[in-house]
């Protein structure tokens, strides 16, 4: 007789979905770091600046906000297509020789990637105080470096057709969503209107005057079905975010804003390679962020979704699971995401109305931190303790989603 103990085979689908473990420790970034300081540089049109001075401005202000000194900084994370070797240039300018450096550059979402990478580095003991930096003078200096038209390598197969980058790619995605689900320009316009209403409450916002649905619809087609006012601003600006280890966070005056969950995903570089134009890489990264944080959608008090274009927000909300596929249009209607609405979204006025200096993602972090600290004055969302931010880069190419909380 066989007396060997019975070895049950558990199908993979029934393995509990907990975080993988390594030497008994959860391989998770939950509360691996906190955000201690945030700041913008001057925004909008800043002709008396360079990419270096704008980043220095934001860097100094963010350190002051955190209550830390330059000498405390031992990690630097940057993204930007300016200069020859941007990370070397900005570290030299600021006089920092970091122990940990990351220049993941996947478009406007880069800074949400950086937040996860800073958390991992801090958890591994590679650094204690990391600064995420961005600056751009694209408006004043008319630098078009971010979306320089490339005609080589993979781009040669799209180059003959004159698709404007990035707006044309987003227009293609909108056309597909309209055709599949009956989404309308009116629904997208309502998001632009709600976002502008938030901007009206933010003294730092570039466009603050109220906006109507008709004004959006009559602003002229750029690439159908997207109108001029479905598109983000084109401004100068910079930002800085100070990320610290839990032991440093507990010594500081301001309440730490903890990273509770982060996920990231890359999909493609050019729009003809995107598998489904209605599902963004946020579907993958969002799942990972929620699983790491161990929370569900109903716990989120305030949300920041990358709004390069109105359609970006609609697709991201669906991909994150805030509504079902095809319901994004209805989700945005009638001021639901605006001041007083049930789903406070992009409360700084977003890339559509506050600022958009090429890579916007760092400003999602800045606003979420301010909301959770209760520093938002007129636009403050009452009792906000948990925020979700989701950055999208390229042409719906990359996404990193982060969940932040006071506890």
């Amino acid at each position: 007789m066989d007396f060997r103990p019975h070895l049950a085979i558990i199908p993979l689908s029934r393995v509990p979905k907990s975080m993988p473990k390594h030497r008994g420790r959860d391989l998770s970034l939950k509360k691996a770091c906190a955000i201690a300081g945030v700041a913008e540089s001057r925004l909008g049109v800043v002709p008396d600046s360079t990419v270096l001075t704008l980043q220095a401005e934001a860097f100094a202000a963010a350190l002051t906000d955190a209550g830390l000194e330059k000498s405390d900084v031992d990690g630097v994370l940057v993204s930007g297509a300016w200069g020859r070797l941007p990370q070397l240039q900005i570290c030299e300018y600021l006089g920092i020789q970091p122990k940990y450096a990351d220049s993941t550059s996947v478009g406007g979402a880069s800074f949400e990637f950086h937040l996860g990478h800073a958390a991992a580095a801090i958890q591994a003991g590679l650094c204690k105080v990391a600064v995420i930096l961005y600056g751009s003078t694209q408006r004043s200096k008319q630098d078009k470096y971010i979306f320089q038209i490339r005609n080589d390598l993979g781009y040669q197969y799209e180059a003959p057709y004159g698709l404007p980058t990035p707006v044309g790619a987003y227009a293609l995605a909108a056309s597909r969503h309209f055709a599949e689900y009956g989404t309308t320009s009116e629904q997208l316009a309502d998001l632009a209107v709600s976002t502008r209403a938030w901007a009206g409450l933010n003294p730092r916002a570039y466009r603050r005057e109220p906006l109507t649905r008709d004004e959006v619809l009559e602003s002229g087609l750029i690439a159908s079905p997207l109108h001029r006012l479905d598109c983000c601003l084109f401004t100068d600006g910079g930002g800085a975010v100070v990320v610290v280890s839990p032991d440093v966070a507990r010594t500081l005056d301001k309440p730490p804003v903890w990273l509770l969950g982060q996920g990231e995903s890359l999909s493609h570089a050019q729009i003809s390679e995107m598998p489904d134009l209605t599902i963004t890489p946020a579907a993958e990264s969002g799942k990972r962020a929620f699983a790491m944080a161990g929370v569900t959608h109903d716990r989120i008090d305030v949300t920041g979704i990358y709004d390069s274009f109105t359609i970006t927000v609609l697709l991201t909300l669906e991909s994150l699971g805030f509504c079902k596929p095809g319901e994004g249009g209805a989700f945005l209607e009638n001021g639901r995401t605006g001041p007083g609405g049930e789903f406070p979204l992009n409360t700084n006025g977003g890339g559509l109305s506050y600022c958009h200096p090429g890579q916007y993602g760092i400003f999602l972090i800045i606003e979420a931190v301010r909301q959770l600290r209760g520093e938002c004055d007129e636009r403050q969302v009452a009792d906000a303790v948990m925020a979700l931010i989701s950055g999208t880069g390229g042409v719906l190419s990359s996404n990193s989603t982060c969940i932040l909380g006071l506890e």
Partner: protein
Amino acid sequence: MAEETQAIDPDGDPYWAGAAEGELHYRKCAACDAAIFYPRSICPKCGATDPAWAVSKGEGVVYACTTVHRAPPAFADNAPYTVLLVDIDEGFRMMGGLANNGEGVADIAIGDRVAVTFQDGPDGRPAPYFTPA
């Protein structure tokens, strides 16, 4: 005699040579049967290297489309014009323009059948465009 160097692109060159002959070339993975576009030296599905070249019939369905009103400077004279993503019957997706700048085409919409035709692109070499089938 001046020495001339010509940049060689083993992915792109056969594709454009095909276009010059009025043929739409793509690649086909022997290992996993994937249709590969744009053409490349490794199968993006299974990782097999050096997939074979194949010629498409050039017919498909419009997957997405936009009419460009604010064009990049080099294309401004043609605006407004339409750019398509087309799901080709052999199982790949590609970008294309509407042939003859859409002349004689009343309307093109997602789901419409289209067929490839070749006309000179902005750099003077023949490139694939599409007409309603």
